[in-house]
């Protein structure tokens, strides 16, 4: 799974030569085999490395503060969202929804690596949400729709239909 994310990320960054990856341990943590240097382990670590490799530092944030915010959401992705126990999922959605109330992207007005990785990580949850639930997390759904249509992001994942109009009203029943 993580490997597919990384290969999609490579494509969206326009990296020509695909890297070699393997996985490690039960949790299948990705490992980047580096030809000129030691190997790197961990999704976020590798993703940050790829962005630097592609000379796209703006995707990690343009100020110290924005870089911290990007780091925070990357950390959130791998520590809070991945392996999230079932009963916690709603809280994570609720928090993200609240946070995104007044933001276009996770780091404010600029698209960053945090959006890409959060999108990959939350896709399997969004796919399973009922229409009513997507309406409930309206800010999150809006952000999600935005990111999945951001040029070059959605590679290995099917699109999720996010309805922007309420089309179920109880008068239809």
């Amino acid at each position, binding site marked *: 799974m993580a490997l597919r994310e990384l290969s999609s990320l490579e494509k969206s960054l326009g990296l020509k030569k695909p890297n070699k990856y393997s996985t490690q341990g039960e949790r299948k943590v990705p490992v980047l085999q580096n030809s000129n240097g030691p190997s790197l*382990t*961990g999704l*976020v*670590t590798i993703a940050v490395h790829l962005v630097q490799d592609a000379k796209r530092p703006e995707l990690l944030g343009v100020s110290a*503060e924005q870089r911290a915010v990007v780091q925070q959401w990357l950390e959130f992705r791998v520590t809070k969202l991945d392996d999230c126990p*079932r009963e916690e999922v709603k809280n994570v959605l609720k928090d993200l929804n609240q946070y995104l109330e007044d933001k276009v992207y996770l780091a404010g007005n600029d698209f960053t690596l945090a959006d890409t990785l959060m999108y990959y990580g939350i896709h399997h949850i969004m796919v399973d949400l009922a229409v009513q639930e997507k309406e409930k997390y309206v800010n999150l759904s809006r952000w999600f729709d935005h990111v999945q249509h951001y040029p070059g992001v959605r590679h290995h994942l099917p699109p999720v239909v996010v309805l922007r109009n309420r089309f179920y009203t109880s*008068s239809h*029943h």
Partner: protein
Amino acid sequence: MKLFISEGNPHCVKVLAAVKLTGVKCDISHVDHEERVVPYLSRPTLPVLLLPSGTHLFTPNAICQYFFEVSGQEANSLCNQWLEWEGTELQPALAQALHLSVLQGKAPEAARALQGPLSFLEQSLSKKGTQFLTAEEVKVADIILWAALYPFMSDSNFMPGDLPQVRRWFERVGLLEACQAASQTVINGKGAALKTFLQKQPVPHSQRRDPQPCNQAEGEDGERVMTEEEVQAATQTWNRGLTDCPSPAKREHPILPQEGKRNVLITSALPYVNNVPHLGNIIGCVLSADVFARYGRLRGWNMLFVCGTDEYGTATENKAREEGLSPREICDKYHAVHSAIYKWFQIDFDFFGRTTTSQQTEIAQDIFWRLHERGFLIEDMVEQLCCQSCQRFLADRFVEGVCPHCQYPEARGDQCDKCGRLINAVELKNPQCKVCGQTPIVRSSKHLFLDLPKLESQLEEWLEQSVTSGDWTANARQITRSWLRDGLKPRCITRDLKWGTPVPHPDFAGKVFYVWFDAPIGYLSITANYTDQWEKWWKNPKQVELYNFMAKDNVPFHSVVFPCSLLGAQDNYTLVNNLIATEYLNYEDTKFSKSRGVGVFGDMAKDTGIPADVWRFYLLYVRPENQDAAFSWADMALKNNSELLNNLGNFINRGGMFVSKFFDGRVPQMELQEEDRRLIAQVGWELRQYIQLLDKVRIRDALKCILNISRHGNQYIQVNEPWKKIKGGDKDRTRAGTVTGVSVNVACLLSAMMQPYMPTVSATIREQLLAPAHQCGRQSVVPKLEADQIESLRKKFGGQQTKAQPEANATPVSPPAPAAAVETHADPERAKQLAQEVAEQGDKVRNLKAQKVEKSVITAEVSKLLELKKQLALAEGKTPEPTPQKGKKK
């Protein structure tokens, strides 16, 4: 810039060390663990860094990185790698290890949990060969890992095996002044702060996961595939029919323990008489106990379920004064209120009594004398305020005066509302009696104390055995353990009051027993009011299994104090074997509060017009089993409409309707095929889960099994389309018959499984399944909750809360169904024709969807379909109901 930290939280050591090491200028604010600093996070999260721009950083590693970056030290890939490893590999292991060692006292298991990450660290350090993790100098990764491991590595009792490199590295980092200062400030060198912090944390993930087999089947993706053996076994059971099933036993009072039976005694915490119970009280004790009692009766256990109102004490005296009645009259009045509420909620007690009876006096005094004779009571002097004009000692809440700490003039006898400090009533300056306004005097009076320290070793021995052999919820075990760890102190068992069980000792004439000593004895005396052979239940630990149900605040009295009274009395009492405690139920994200008028109280639930079974269903669905839960109106409407109505109710109605419509009300012949057998196996598997879970009193999880069965059933009907097959040839008609027959059989099983949860609905289904055919399936067993109805209820019970709920507000109200006109519109011929049209239109829509034609076209066809369905419903003489949105439920 402002950094918020809390005591005992190892993550706060990280950020504090980082800020000190980098010298970044920053205000530091100490807050409580429960403080919600970040407005958009639903759980309190610390540490938090508030940046000048107003942005909050709330993950510890990002905060540390930020401090390092602004001081000019950017992290490299190697550092990032350690940080990610810390967050994803080390932290989960640490959370588990801390839980094991600090809260459960299992140090060896904790060391084992950390073995993997620590040996990885050891290897990396020895391979790298530098002084620190990534270089010869300290980087952000060193600080973070050091702080994370601090609680273990600084503990001399921690034995993780041979880790020379890790130890040397840990010492090296620990020499930094910044690290020493940070750990000093946050952890304090003692375990107490850390423990408090950990108690507030959710139970670590991997521990929670293992004993929840039910979750597996809950999701669509995690669907369990039946093996060939399981399918065969299920088919055999099916073929055997009902021949071996015992018929349910009749309840004959008085119920007494029987030789060779499982004899189960259930109590639910005695509600205090002068308060009307709210929903939280109801789910916490009586409703949970009722579900388990009903389940036990279905299982054929020999059950006795007793409860009653707790009536003695200051609060009753006070209430009596307020209402101008005698305490006895107050108790009579409110006991009736309680009884009526529980009756409405269908709580099926074998006996619902009260504590103000002669049996209570007799049994309490007997226990008292036995404790006294055996030297478990001690005398001591207690200083109390006494009002001479009222001629009584004043309980804390009856005194007011000047706070000795902050000089606030209206401090109460137990606490000052201004400075919040706890006060001993005799310390108040210028105290005043709240009843008459006179100045009370300090008078010492002699009181009796239960010598808990003397009983401690006996108690521990019994606890060890009870906790390991019975079912104690995690919170019950934890609270009990923490009480014992803090050491037991003698507890005063007498009070200077009038309304209570009199102390029989002549030296203590005019005094009564303190409620905590007296109230649990109520279980015994209430049973004694039920039968004069009560001792067969209460002095019979060999034959009787005792379950206590309560909310968590009641745990210490049932696990420590009351058992000590009974152990000390040495009369072969039945002690609790299974202690089932719930967490709290909140009301729409706040607390239930009578004084603020927030929340739903037992007597009001009836007035909402929502049937008791729907209340029961929802309260049990959100039962606060592992953590606090919240009651929410919108959620109740959602769960009722989606789970109860569209899933469960829909499935049961469909089976019944097919029987009455297509098969003249008789269950048709069935010829099982592979698919039917697989469904039966799946249902059987869920049933076994249900039994396993309810045996362990996992009430909420077991309810999910019921819903899973009807979900399987709905899919089964949907796939097999009996309404179409019935119109086909002989083979198709037989198939329709089989599917219908299997469905109603499953519905019948469901009615039994639902009985503990929703007794009325269960009875209605059973009636319909056995009733003359033309009635079958015509009545909906569950009402739909409309958005406007729920919204108005939410407003009515919400007190001062004004925060609007967008979902509930924005949904337009459905047009009122012409209820009176329904009967005259019913038209079977037209209905038949419409049913045909609906089926055709449905196919058309599905085809269009499959071909992915333009949305507007589909929408137009869908609205045609909905219109047809509405007409069909009217023609069938029903109010239009929502069609189940198959496939949208994912």
